[in-house]
């Protein structure tokens, strides 16, 4: 099954420790095992742009609302046997400690 894993910042998580950030090993391990299809880090909310079309008019605004302390900092697309494997992959990601991860199944094409 294919899952989107959002990497989310979390003010209640542990303080970030750069020396304990094992992201390279995580990527290497899951790429090697074919469980990570694609993934990347994203620029912060300040660099985001919101686009809406209302009454035929395109409205472009800065960011989403910036007061939130929890924002999506990155993502990985996972290919796993089932949810338990996806949970195992997510739990090994350093941001499970320093933030949190949200694992969501893809909506299959045929449905």
């Amino acid at each position: 099954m294919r899952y989107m894993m959002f990497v989310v910042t979390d003010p209640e998580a542990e303080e970030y420790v750069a020396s304990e950030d094992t992201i390279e090993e995580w990527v290497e391990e899951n790429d090697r095992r074919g469980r990570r299809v694609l993934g990347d880090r994203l620029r912060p909310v300040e660099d985001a742009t919101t686009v809406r079309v209302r009454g035929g008019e395109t409205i472009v605004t800065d960011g989403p609302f910036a007061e939130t302390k929890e924002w999506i900092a990155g993502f990985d697309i996972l290919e796993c046997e089932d949810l338990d494997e996806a949970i195992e992959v997510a739990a090994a990601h350093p941001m499970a400690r320093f933030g949190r991860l949200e694992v969501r199944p893809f909506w299959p094409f045929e449905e």
Partner: protein
Amino acid sequence: MTGDPAPDSVGRAGVDAAVAAAYRSDWGRIVATLIRITGDWSLAEDCAQEAFELALTRWGRDGTPRTPGAWLTTAARNRAIDRLRRASSEAFKLREIGIMDELDAWADGHEHDTDIEDDRLRLIFTCCHPALPLDARVALTLRTITGLSTAEIAGAFLVQEQAMSQRLVRARRKIKNAGIPYRVPSGQLLGERLPGVLAVLYLLFTQGYSGVPNELADEAIRLTRLLARLMPDEPEVTGLLALMLLQHSRAAARVDGTGVPLSLEEQDRSWWDRAAIDEGVALLESALRRREPGGYQLQAAIAALHAQAAAAEHTDWAQIVQLYDQLLLRHPSPVIELNRAVAVGMLDGPAAGLAIVEALAPKLDGFYLVPATQAELLRRLGRAEEATERYRAAIALAPTEAERRFCGKRISGLGGGSATRRTP
């Protein structure tokens, strides 16, 4: 249809009883195996339901088969095959042939008993998966494994049937959509998941124990018994079963003739179920021999000390306080601290208990057992007026009518102030 109809026709009541007994022994097994083979939770439950409905009419007409379990398995298998044939489309043909073969092997009894046991274990772990909300885990466990109807589950948890039905639909949908596996976790994951399963079972038990008149406590014991049989090497499972049996042994003595709860001191101990106590103690001892103590074993040990005291004044409070200390090391919780305070009040006198409760009170703001415990300790100190005031505070916070009446009765017993609600 296979099965061996007995020649003599039984009465309506006999048929109902036979179907009810088969429901208890075979529902979970049939649903569990249908889910594994077809991967379809709704289909599995519907087919099992139809098989039992068919049994009600057929057994009434032809007599109860000699092997009701086999009869029901065949009936459920046939329902499943019918449905799959009707729903069949080219895309699913190949997969379906495999499913049909497995269904046949199952109904013909070619599967090993261990497969069937494994199916039920898988079902328990899937129903209790942490990715499902807690209320859905409880509801799904009851509906799928014990076969309680949606209306019965809704009644036990005091919610509308429609809402309960929605909860079950959402849970089944999430299992499918999110890819929650139908599997007993292995290795380290088993250790991580088992406490969640035990928590669901204990929640079922306490819900059945909390005054709502229903059979949840019995169902919880039955399920835990099954789990303990399937996982004999897990002492916490055995410990939980012991805890339930020891607590349940007092069921008949817990309330007076008008439904007001009785304290341990007030209960008539001759009403306690000796067989349940003996079994609970034996299970606890076998669990403790593995030397992997855990929260349920410790709570069971406390319950065993109460159960084994011939009279309230013979209770070994010193050991109970020690066990609470061990429990708190593992599971720090203000509610357990409150229970410990009661035990300290019995061991070192009410003033010592009261001091602990006073210090705890801010952590348990709004919890009715805080003023109720203070009241009890004040009563024993002879401070009747303060005790009355605390019982009144407890009445204002108590969640059930029975608990309010318990406090009201205590106020009457103090003689001082008048009770808000006197019992006849």
